[in-house]
């Protein structure tokens, strides 16, 4: 019904026409509309973590027989907004022994990649900000940069323990990036393209009328790929049961303990934005993007379906955090190198076989 994609497209056409008619060159108008689109995306990515923080506090509350934030706004909806304002007003403490520039740069390098990563994500029909041909690879590449932010955070805090904490967190991110990339390769092999838009589109349609042709329902390879992707995404976003930075703060200070005020808010925003990014990628790659099920097509627009499925995956992330204790650091590394990686290789081989069979 009210698909947002074409409507927005049409709006920008009108805008460009209006600008050109008022003496603006075609290029300038095009650039202007691109800038406006980018701003909408950045605003969206800045708002989503606030929704996620609220969701996390409410979900954890109900899991623990309590109510969660209730005072600020009806059912505590404005609580995260209030937290944001509080963090902005907090004094930004830079430790004496710290390296001022690196302390300033760390949150920037940790947060900036997140905004860029959302470009190729297909929010719905026609709602892909930039349908890059190498979408998946682009996201993995740019999200790798934020690991450097964590290292800078560890170094910029000036104390030996937070540096150790930063190193351990970076080691975890590096090692879990590999199974995450490997787990997505079967999807790319099967659909022959790296653009998230085309992959999501290719998953529309039904098997025998009822089972949607999502990659997760492909016999063995779908489930293995999805599970490895989910597990390594939880590890990539430093969330329980892989939250080494928090565990480190028990013994060795975590890398972001020396940051306060807005800088801490940026690290916080990065974590939740990555959770949303991982869920969005999971939806696009494994759950068929904007493709609805059960209800006949067209009742709900595709971007609503996309958001529903993404929030379902986000709920999984939240659920893990409040039920599982923390893995010890060496078990965590062992799990990655000795369990996730071999299985992702097996999965790639299996998919290769299936692709061969399909070509016959």
């Amino acid at each position, binding site marked *: 019904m009210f698909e947002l994609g074409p409507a927005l497209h049409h709006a920008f056409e009108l805008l460009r026409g209006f600008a050109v008619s008022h003496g603006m060159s075609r*290029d300038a108008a095009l650039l202007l509309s691109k800038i406006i689109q980018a701003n909408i995306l950045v605003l969206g990515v800045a708002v989503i973590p606030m929704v996620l923080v609220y969701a996390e506090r409410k979900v954890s509350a109900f899991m623990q027989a309590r109510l969660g934030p209730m005072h600020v706004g009806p059912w505590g909806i404005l609580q995260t907004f209030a937290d944001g304002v509080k963090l902005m007003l907090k004094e930004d403490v830079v430790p004496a022994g710290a390296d001022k520039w690196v302390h300033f740069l760390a949150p920037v390098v940790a947060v900036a990649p997140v905004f860029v990563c959302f470009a190729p994500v297909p929010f719905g029909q026609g709602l892909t900000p930039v349908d890059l*041909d190498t979408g998946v*690879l682009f996201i993995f590449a740019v999200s790798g940069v934020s690991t450097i932010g964590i290292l800078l955070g560890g170094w910029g805090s000036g104390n030996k323990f937070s*540096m150790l904490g930063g190193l351990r967190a970076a080691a975890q991110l*590096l090692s879990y990036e590999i199974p995450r990339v490997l787990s997505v390769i079967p999807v790319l092999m099967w659909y022959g393209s790296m653009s998230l838009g085309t992959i999501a589109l290719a998953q529309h349609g039904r098997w025998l009328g009822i089972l949607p042709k999502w990659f997760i329902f492909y016999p063995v390879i779908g489930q293995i790929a999805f599970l490895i992707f989910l597990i390594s995404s939880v590890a990539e976003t430093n969330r329980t049961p892989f939250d080494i930075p928090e565990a480190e703060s028990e013994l060795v200070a975590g890398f972001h303990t020396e940051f306060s005020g807005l800088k801490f808010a940026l690290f916080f925003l990065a974590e939740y934005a990555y959770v949303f990014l991982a869920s969005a990628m999971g939806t696009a790659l494994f759950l068929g993007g904007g493709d609805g099920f059960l209800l006949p097509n067209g009742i709900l627009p595709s971007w609503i379906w996309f958001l529903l499925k993404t929030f379902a995956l986000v709920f999984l992330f939240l659920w893990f955090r409040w039920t599982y204790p923390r893995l010890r650091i060496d078990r965590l590394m062992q799990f990655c190198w000795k369990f996730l990686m071999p299985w992702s290789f097996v999965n790639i081989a299996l998919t290769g076989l299936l692709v061969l069979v399909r070509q016959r």
Partner: protein
Amino acid sequence: MSPSLSSLVFYAFSAMLVVTAVGVVTLRNVFYSAVSLVAALTIVAGLFVLLGADFLGAAQVLVYVGGILIIMLFVIMLSQQPRDLLQRQTNDQWIAGLFFALTIGVSLVRAFTYFVSQTPPDGDIAPTSASLGRLLLGEMLLPFEAVSLILLAALVGAVVFGQEKNA
């Protein structure tokens, strides 16, 4: 992207690239030069994308910035003591160095001007990952496998050297 806009972006990127590259060499603090190396390589990736090699740009960021430079930062953070971080970057043979740089510079400039005049800038920017993939696993299969063998040998070597004596 009309020619005037893309050339503007190109010159901006190149200028930033030169600044960060010089920064890598001249910055007194080793950590700062590592960070400016990160910036330099990211800008190189930007240039690749500008030239239409989107796969190469993404791979550059993934491999260099996401992998190699993080290891470099690891090494710097683990090994360096704060005091000997601030070493003087330049030494007294800088005259010989300058002369050598000039000759290399002149020959490079002549080479570029020759190439630029030869190849007309092609028009549309087509996605390259498919053709690159076919090339790598088609004609170039043998060198591709050879390179992976060399990398494997390097990996095993690093682990052996990294092994602590008593382990």
